[in-house]
C-alpha cells in the first residue's frame, strides 16, 4: 500500500512539471506584447520597460523558462500585478474559502447523488426511477451559473430565505456560513449530483444482476443487508474513481459560481485576474489548482486501491 502510494506520487512529478510548462506556455499565447496589454494604452515607454522587466519578458524564452522553473522549485508562483502580492500568498489566503465550499458541494454530491442513484436502481423502471433520472438528466444539462442566478431570484429576491451571496467564516458563525454557502454549493453540485446519480444507478443495476447477490439472497439475507453489505461495497468502487473528476469539475465551476455569489475564494480571484489580464496570477493560480487536483487524485487512487481487495491484495 505504501509502495503504491509512493509510486503514484512519483508518477505525478513529471506531470506536474508538464502542467507548469503548459501554464507557462499559455502566457506565450498572448498576441503581441503582454506588457502592453497589461499596462494599457496610456503607459509611458519607461513604465512598459519596467513592466517587461518585472514579467521577465526582456529575456530570451529559454532563460524565461529556466527562471520560471527556478522560482517554482523555491515555491515562488510569481507576483500578482493587480494585487501587488506573491501569487502563492494570495492563493493560500483564499483557498480555505474555496475548500470549504468545495467540501460542502462534495458532501451534497455524494449524499444526494448516491441516494438518488440507489433508490432509482432499487425501483428500476417504476415511476420513482423515471422521476429520479429525469431530475439527474436535467441536472447535467443546466448551466451551473444560470442555476445560481435562478436560485438567487427565487430564494433571495422572492422568498428572502437565503442571502444573495458573500461569505461568512465557518468558525465565526456556522449558521451564517451554512446559509451563505448553501446556494453556491448547490449550484456547483447540481451537475455532479446528476452525473453521480446516473453512474450509481447503472452500476447498482449491474451489481444487482451479479451472481454473488443471488448467493447473498440464498443465504437468507434481508433486502437492506443485500443492498448495503453486498451491493454497496461493490458500487462504491467505480464511484470512487469518478470522485477525482467530480472534484475537478467542482473546482472548474468555482470561478463562475464564486463570482456570481461574491464568494472571495480562489475562483473569484481567478475570475478577477482574467478580467484584469493579470497573467502571472492566472498562470500561478492554474498551477496551484492543478497541483491540488493531482494530489487529490492520488488520494482517490489510494482510496480505490484500499477499497478493492483485488487491487489491494497482490
Amino acid at each position, binding site marked *: 500500500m505504501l509502495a503504491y502510494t509512493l509510486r503514484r506520487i512519483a508518477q505525478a512529478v513529471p506531470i506536474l512539471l508538464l502542467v507548469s510548462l503548459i501554464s507557462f506556455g499559455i502566457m506565450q499565447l498572448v498576441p503581441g506584447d503582454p506588457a502592453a496589454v497589461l499596462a494599457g494604452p496610456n503607459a509611458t515607454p519607461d513604465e512598459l520597460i519596467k513592466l517587461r522587466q518585472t514579467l521577465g519578458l526582456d529575456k530570451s524564452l529559454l532563460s524565461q523558462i529556466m527562471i520560471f522553473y527556478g522560482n517554482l522549485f523555491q515555491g515562488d508562483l510569481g507576483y500578482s500585478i493587480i494585487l501587488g502580492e506573491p501569487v502563492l500568498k494570495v492563493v493560500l489566503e483564499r483557498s480555505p474559502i474555496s475548500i470549504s465550499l468545495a467540501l460542502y458541494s462534495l458532501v451534497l454530491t455524494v449524499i444526494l447523488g448516491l441516494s438518488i442513484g440507489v433508490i432509482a436502481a432499487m425501483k428500476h423502471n417504476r415511476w420513482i426511477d423515471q422521476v429520479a433520472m429525469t431530475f439527474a438528466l436535467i441536472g447535467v444539462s443546466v448551466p451551473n451559473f444560470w442555476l445560481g442566478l435562478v436560485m438567487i431570484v427565487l430564494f433571495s429576491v422572492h422568498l428572502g430565505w437565503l442571502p444573495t451571496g458573500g461569505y461568512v467564516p465557518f468558525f465565526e458563525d456556522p449558521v451564517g456560513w451554512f446559509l451563505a454557502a448553501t446556494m453556491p454549493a448547490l449550484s456547483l453540485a447540481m451537475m455532479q449530483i446528476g452525473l453521480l446519480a446516473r453512474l450509481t444507478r447503472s452500476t447498482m443495476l449491474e451489481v444487482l444482476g451479479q451472481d454473488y447477490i443471488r448467493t*447473498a439472497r*440464498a*443465504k437468507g439475507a434481508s433486502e437492506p*443487508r443485500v443492498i448495503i453489505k453486498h451491493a454497496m461495497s461493490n458500487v462504491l468502487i467505480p464511484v470512487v474513481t469518478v470522485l477525482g473528476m467530480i472534484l475537478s469539475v467542482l473546482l472548474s465551476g468555482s470561478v463562475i459560481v464564486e463570482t456570481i455569489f461574491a464568494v472571495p475564494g480562489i475562483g473569484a480571484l481567478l475570475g478577477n485576474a482574467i478580467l484584469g489580464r493579470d497573467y502571472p496570477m492566472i498562470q500561478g493560480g492554474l498551477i496551484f489548482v492543478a497541483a491540488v487536483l493531482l494530489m487529490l487524485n492520488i488520494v482517490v487512487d489510494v482510496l480505490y486501491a484500499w477499497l478493492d481487495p*483485488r487491487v489491494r491484495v497482490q
Partner: protein
Amino acid sequence: MQKEPILRVEGLRTTFTGDEGTVVAVDDVSFDVNEGEIVGLIGESGSGKSVTALAIMGLLPKSTSQVTAERIMFDGRNLARASDREMRRLRGGSIGMIFQEPMSSLNPVLKIGDQLIEPIRIHERISYRAAFDRGVELLTKVGIPSPVQRMNDYPHQLSGGMRQRVMIAIALSCSPKLLLADEPTTALDVTIQAQLLDLLLEIQAETKMAIVLITHSMGVIAECADKVVVMYSGRIAEQGPVTDIFDRPGHPYTKGLMQCTPELTGNPRRLTTIPGALPSLSALPPGCRFAPRCGLAQPACEAGRPPMIGVGQNHASACIRADELVASAAQPEGAEV
C-alpha cells in the same frame, strides 16, 4: 407407511415477462424428494431445471418473473404461500443452495470468512467467535487446507475448485435438510469435478440431507442419484428411480440423453445423437415438445400434451409410446442374458 417427502413440488409454473412478451419457462412440474434422497434433475441448458430450483428458493426476480404452484411443501410448510420473511428464514437455513459459477458467486470485496459466517449469524443467535470457529470447521470439512488463513483471504486468491468448496461450506453452514445444487461442477476442470462430487456424496452420507442435483450429465446422475427427473423444454419428460430409468427408459429423449453421455467426464453442451435443438420458449410446438426432434414421433404426438403414463413403480413418462419403449428396452436385454 411411507414418510412424508421433505420436498413435494406440485404443478410448479414459472413465466418470464420481457420485451418480447411472456414465455413459460417451467410448465406444470411436479416431483417429490424424500429425506436423505439424492434426486437428479437433468436436461439441456434452457430446459428449465435451474429455474425450477430458483423458483423453489424464491430467488427469481419478482419484477420479471411469476411463480405459481399448487403446492410446494417443504418440511410441512407450503412455500408457494410463504411470506418473504418466512422464505428468508428458510433460505440458507433449512435449504442450502450451490450455484454453477464459483468464479462469480462469491462477493469479490468481502473476505471468505465474512461470507461463510454470514448465514450462521443470520439464522442462529451465536457469537462472532463461535461462528468463526464453525466456519473454520466447515472449511476443514470441505477439504480446504490452512482454513484459518483462508478465512481472511478474498475470493480472487482462491482457485475455482476452492471457491466451489467454499460455496459448499456456505450452503452447509446451517445444516440444511435440503440442498439444491445447480450444476455445481459444470464450470470446473474434469478432475476437480470428480473430487467435488465425491465430497458432496461423502457429506450427504454423513448428514443424510436430501439433495436436488441439477446437471446435464447422465454420468453424474448414474454416479450420485437415487431418483431422476428428466426435464425437456420446461416440462417433465420422465421421472423414476435411477435404475429403472437406465434399464428401461420410457421416453425417447431420455434414451437419447443416455446414448450421448457414455461417461462421467462427458460434458455435452449439445446432444449430438439427438438432431435439432430445444424449441424456443416463445414458439413451442403444440403437442409433445420433443416431437419435432423425435425419431418415434407419430401424428398423435402433435395433437396435444402427452399425459404422464406410469410404466413401473414411481416411474412415469410423458410419452404416448412409453409402454412400447419400456417393453422394447426390457426384451433385448433379457435376450442377451
